[in-house]
């Protein structure tokens, strides 16, 4: 028992201290953070910049209406005035603040002069809103700006809005009535299980992310166990250790140590994720709170641990059998096949959580950690006996595999030379 602890601790400390672990653990969340947060921060900073635009329309009313709408919209989006970060939607961030001027000179000469100004960077853009263009519903905005102001259609939306208002106003409607009629409507998907139940879309995405984390981590750390055993075998330190520890202790120590590293990494990511989600920049943090219920997290931990132990045990046997990385890679693909299949079918299973394939996948021990977890997350009314049966089958398989792989491991680590054939492996299992 003490030896298992010493071996697991060495494995854990060596791995956690390694550069690869530090890079993986801190770089991946940073990367995610960088991809999602940084651009929006840069855009928010961009609003400090002031740009000039001109609206050209022979009809001063139309031009003024457009100007007032643009200014109002920009006013609404000043970051300091947001009550809640959740209200920030992707399209709402404009790159710069525009001061808007109005010109009623719609002659060709004026257009040439304005274009020249834009080219010389004396002006940042002008909107050509002549009655012909308005009735054709196609305006041009001559600019060098390529920010979200144009690309996300903010300007287009704002101008459409202004023109709509202008049209309604010219029909004699009152300001308040126009405001009321143009008030946008939000439609949100809601689960049939009630208001507090998580949004099904968010749920699917969150479950998918968790399944992928489980898959990647089991794969990564299972292969880690295999490589590390192969390294011990090829560097022959195995024999020194075997002179005091048993092969069982070595295998158990290795699996526990590497598993603890995996848990540490997932733990750091989860902590980073919750800090990140608590920040003001995530829209759906309330929804995520609903999705990540404590019971789901417990299921995640249970299926993750069981899946890891099962696969790392198989990987330990493979690592002990082979003699080189190349041999290991061929074998590792075979061992990981069921999990890879489970991931391929997971979308189908999410869509039809009661199909025979979903039922089989969630009971078959080599796919059940991923599939059963996915079903538990997606289908809260799943019969309890299915969950219990799935876990029981998984435990029984782990027990059998630990016995079987322990026997292969015991002989395999002392065998050098060629890759063993199946009859040879069966012989190893039978050895006393």
């Amino acid at each position, binding site marked *: 028992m003490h*030896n298992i602890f*010493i*071996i697991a601790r*060495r494995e854990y400390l*060596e791995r956690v201290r*390694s550069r690869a672990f530090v890079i993986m653990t801190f770089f991946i969340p940073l990367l995610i953070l960088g991809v999602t947060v940084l651009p929006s921060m840069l855009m928010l900073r961009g609003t400090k910049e002031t740009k000039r635009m001109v609206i050209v329309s022979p009809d001063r009313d139309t031009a003024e209406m457009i100007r007032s709408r643009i200014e109002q919209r920009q006013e609404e989006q000043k970051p300091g005035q947001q009550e809640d970060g959740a209200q920030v939607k992707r399209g709402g961030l404009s790159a710069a603040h525009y001061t808007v001027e109005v010109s009623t000179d719609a002659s060709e000469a004026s257009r040439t002069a304005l274009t020249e100004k834009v080219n010389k960077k004396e002006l940042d853009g002008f909107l050509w809103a002549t009655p012909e263009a308005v009735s054709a519903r196609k305006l041009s905005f001559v600019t060098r700006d390529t920010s979200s102001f144009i690309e996300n259609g903010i300007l287009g939306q704002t101008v459409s809005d202004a023109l709509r208002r202008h049209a309604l106003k010219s029909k004699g409607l009152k300001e308040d009535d126009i405001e009321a009629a143009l008030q946008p409507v939000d439609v949100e998907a809601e689960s049939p299980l009630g208001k507090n139940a998580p949004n099904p879309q968010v749920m699917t995405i969150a479950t998918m992310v968790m399944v992928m984390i489980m898959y990647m981590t089991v794969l990564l750390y299972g292969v880690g166990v295999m490589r590390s055993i192969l*390294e*011990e075998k090829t*560097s*022959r*330190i*195995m*024999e*020194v*250790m*075997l*002179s*005091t*520890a*048993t092969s069982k202790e070595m295998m158990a120590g290795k699996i526990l140590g590497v598993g603890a590293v995996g848990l540490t990494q997932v733990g750091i990511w989860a902590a980073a994720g919750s800090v990140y989600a608590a920040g003001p920049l995530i829209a759906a943090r309330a929804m995520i709170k609903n999705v990540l219920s404590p019971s789901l997290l417990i299921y995640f931990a249970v299926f993750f641990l069981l899946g890891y132990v099962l696969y790392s045990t198989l990987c330990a046997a493979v690592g002990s059998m082979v003699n080189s990385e190349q041999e290991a890679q061929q074998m590792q693909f075979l061992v990981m096949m069921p999990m890879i299949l489970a991931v391929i079918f997971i979308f189908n299973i999410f869509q039809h959580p009661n199909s025979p394939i979903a039922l089989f996948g969630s009971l078959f021990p080599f796919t059940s950690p991923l599939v059963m977890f996915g079903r538990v997350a997606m289908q809260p009314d799943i019969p309890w006996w299915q969950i219990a049966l799935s876990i029981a089958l998984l435990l029984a398989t782990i027990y059998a595999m630990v016995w079987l792989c322990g026997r292969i491991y015991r002989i395999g680590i*002392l065998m050098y030379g060629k890759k063993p054939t199946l009859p040879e492996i069966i*012989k190893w299992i039978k050895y*006393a």
Partner: protein
Amino acid sequence: MHTIELIKVRKSYDQFVAVNDLSFSIEQGRVFGLLGPNGAGKTSTIRMMIGITVPDSGHINLFGKPFERTGLQKIGYLPEERGLYKKMKVLDQLVFLGELHGMEAGAARQKALEWCKRLEIDAWVQKKVEELSKGMQQKIQFIAALLHDPDFIIMDEPFFGLDPVNATLLKDVMLDLKRLGKTILFSTHRMDQVEKLCDSICLINKGTAVLQGDLKTIKSQYGKNNVQIEYEGNGDFLEKNPLVSAFNNYGNYVEVRLAPGADAQQLLRMVADRSRVNKFELMEPSLEEIFINTVGKTNA
């Protein structure tokens, strides 16, 4: 007391019998040589002695009691194939191996530093193993086997790959250990070293003991009818000489066994006639010759 005793120990892999009813014992405080050609079953025997594998039949007594795993913490083992964690720092590695042998981390650390100083690698303790030369890695492996102050030290080819300076350093350490009453088992096919260090030997071939006992007794059994000759000139005539029953050419000198009834003086005259003799010594056979002849005979 016998440190270890093997009684009719047998181990086979499929049809192949690696160790065939082998019996020998080592008394406490003795230096014992387990000798044999490659594939004779030396490593298989050692693996059973330290519980890596279990004999198919026969008994092993360790420290006077039937084999128990708890006894393993008093054994130091230097395997033939050296192995260390390449990415791990020297000191961490030694502490880890010390702890596996039941030491406290602090004590293991202190001992490791003492040994590193003694073997002149204390400047390297914070380096990773892969940054060290082969010879230094050897020393670390050696320390790993001795760190926990074992009573029984098993060394498989301990001098393999060492330069003469380091080999002498290790030999002195082993003589010290012998003086402290430790039992040492050497497994090797390098006879010259065994001859310098061992008290008794067991020569095995094809899993069976072909010669064993006290080294001096064994050698005296052969009597002083070996001659070592150093000469200049062509010595081919010695090989097919009626006065000679066995001939081994070592390059710089030859060693011959006199045929029964042959006179050494007659041989000397014969050699002197044909070449310039620098040395002509009557002696007990070297272990190497005993080895070659005994193994050759059992293989025939």
